[in-house]
């Protein structure tokens, strides 16, 4: 699967409070409204300018903080096709996959704001069209690939009627 779009660059330690600020707590049951404030405290112009297919590109420890699944959800609702970072906080990483938003671990120093990117999700490569370079990303655990391919955890359970994942199952 190939994703194409423009990079929106952010720094290290972008927290869930940057992404989905607590002052909009009352909008959590209204995701389209909440998405109008996505990443507002990191870049006030982002929500108004992001285009469908674009990428959010962070530094270290992207998504640290709260368990609020609304954070990756509204990034997706805003039209973003994938999030990239040098590292992700654990809950945000898991939530991203669960809501069907690819979260890719790669060297984001090789990406500048507004670079045009092309992501080969299955091939594990990001082409930086602006720079003419190729960046590899760390493959996701197989469990997460399965969830992502089903369109997220809820869709996975809808499809299989259970958690039907390739885990290290107990030996018989």
């Amino acid at each position, binding site marked *: 699967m190939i994703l194409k779009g423009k990079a929106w660059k952010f720094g290290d*330690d972008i*927290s869930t*409070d*940057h992404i989905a*600020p*607590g*002052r909009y*707590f*009352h*909008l*959590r*049951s*209204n995701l389209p409204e909440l998405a109008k404030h996505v990443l507002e*405290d990191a870049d006030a112009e982002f929500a108004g300018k992001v285009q469908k297919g674009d990428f959010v590109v962070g530094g*270290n*420890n992207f998504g*640290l*903080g*709260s*368990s*609020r*699944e*609304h954070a990756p959800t509204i990034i997706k609702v805003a039209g973003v096709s994938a999030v990239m970072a040098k*590292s*992700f*906080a*654990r*809950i945000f990483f*898991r*939530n991203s996959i*669960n*809501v069907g938003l690819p979260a890719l671990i790669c060297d984001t120093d090789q990406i500048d704001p507004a670079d045009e990117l092309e992501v080969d999700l299955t091939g594990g490569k990001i082409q930086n069209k602006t720079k003419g370079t190729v960046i590899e990303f760390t493959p996701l*655990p*197989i*469990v997460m690939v399965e969830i992502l391919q089903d369109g*997220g*955890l*809820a869709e996975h*359970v*809808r499809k299989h009627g*259970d*958690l039907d*994942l390739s*885990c*290290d*199952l*107990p*030996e018989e």
Partner: protein
Amino acid sequence: MGKTIAEKILGEHAGCEVRPGQIHIVTVDVALVQDGTGPLAVRQLQSLGLEKAAHPERTVLFLDHAAPSPRKELSNDHVTLRKFAAKTGAVLSEVGDGVCHQVINESYVNPGDVLIGADSHTCTGGALCAFSTGMGSTDVAIGIALGKTWMLIPPTIRVEVTGDLTPGVYSKDIILHLIGTIGADGATYKALEFGGPTVDGMEQSERFTLSNMAVEAGAKTGLIASDDVTREYLDSRGRAANFREIGPDPDAEYERVVDIDASTLAPTVSFPHTVDNTRTIDEAKGVKIDQVVIGTCTNGRLHDLMVAASILRGKHRHPGTRLIVIPASREVYLEAIRAGYIETFVEAGGLIVNPGCGPCVGVHEGVLADGEKCLSTQNRNFHGRMGNPKGEIYLGSPATAAATAIKGELADPREFLS
């Protein structure tokens, strides 16, 4: 090969031997959601036609983050959770009952359990030797309905604490120091395991503070071996029969061991806007503070209120500094009333907020003005956390908070020890 606490508990719940790096399906003993994450979990289950709880008596829905509700949208979210409880038999923790991480441990969590919660500070239960971890709404929704979840078995970082804490220094200072040392991503996707003579000698309340902040180093949980302190706590909660002694094997394999000599620590403060931006009080003193908050799931227990009240007794808050106190649960509130702490706070010019999350989440009950600075006993000081990105949040112990309220600036609690 020896096992860490995490490997023991997750192995029991996977039904097989587990090693770090493996992914297993594990059974879930206790699950929680709160009013900020629960409505989404309920909607997911409704859309899947799975509106049920595998263990309703151990599924708890908390109205604590926006409680009582300051807005009609949140009032409607509360109704969503009340209806789910009524339909499934899950337990509802009402407005005023307290913060999820306090109440769940007071009444539901036992050593050896797996607890998942749609709140990042679910890791607090590690202090009762339960594998407790935060997840998102959909993960917890599925865990509630099916009674299981998938887990990556984490490697463990052992935090070995030796030496006696000096007067005025508390477990909050240990955990702030640790996060300042290893960084806000120093334990990402790993389990922390706190131990050593200092932790062995620590009372349960102080242990909860350590485990509560494990996630601020990126950790999945923060485990402490169960012992006589755990047994006494469970006994005091009417759950003596649920005690199990669980600890790491002597030859357990750790990814890393971090040694802390508690006797060398000073009161510690996290500066804006990350928890790992720590300074000792000597480097922090003098910063003018507009609001002091004592409470939250990190430091809103009776012991915390006792420490703060002992400093504030007979004194008054600085005229330029507001003082907000939040007991973590209804039970803590009652005990603090009986012990006279609440009277002390009110006489000292403090304001008592109902049990719950208070202003920590930025919803209500103490949103900062532009440019204001707050010293709070909470666990997180991110940009915008307390409802205003133009506010600044500093983190410290209840003792540091009490001293700061009196002086109106970041202050050393050791100046107030009698």
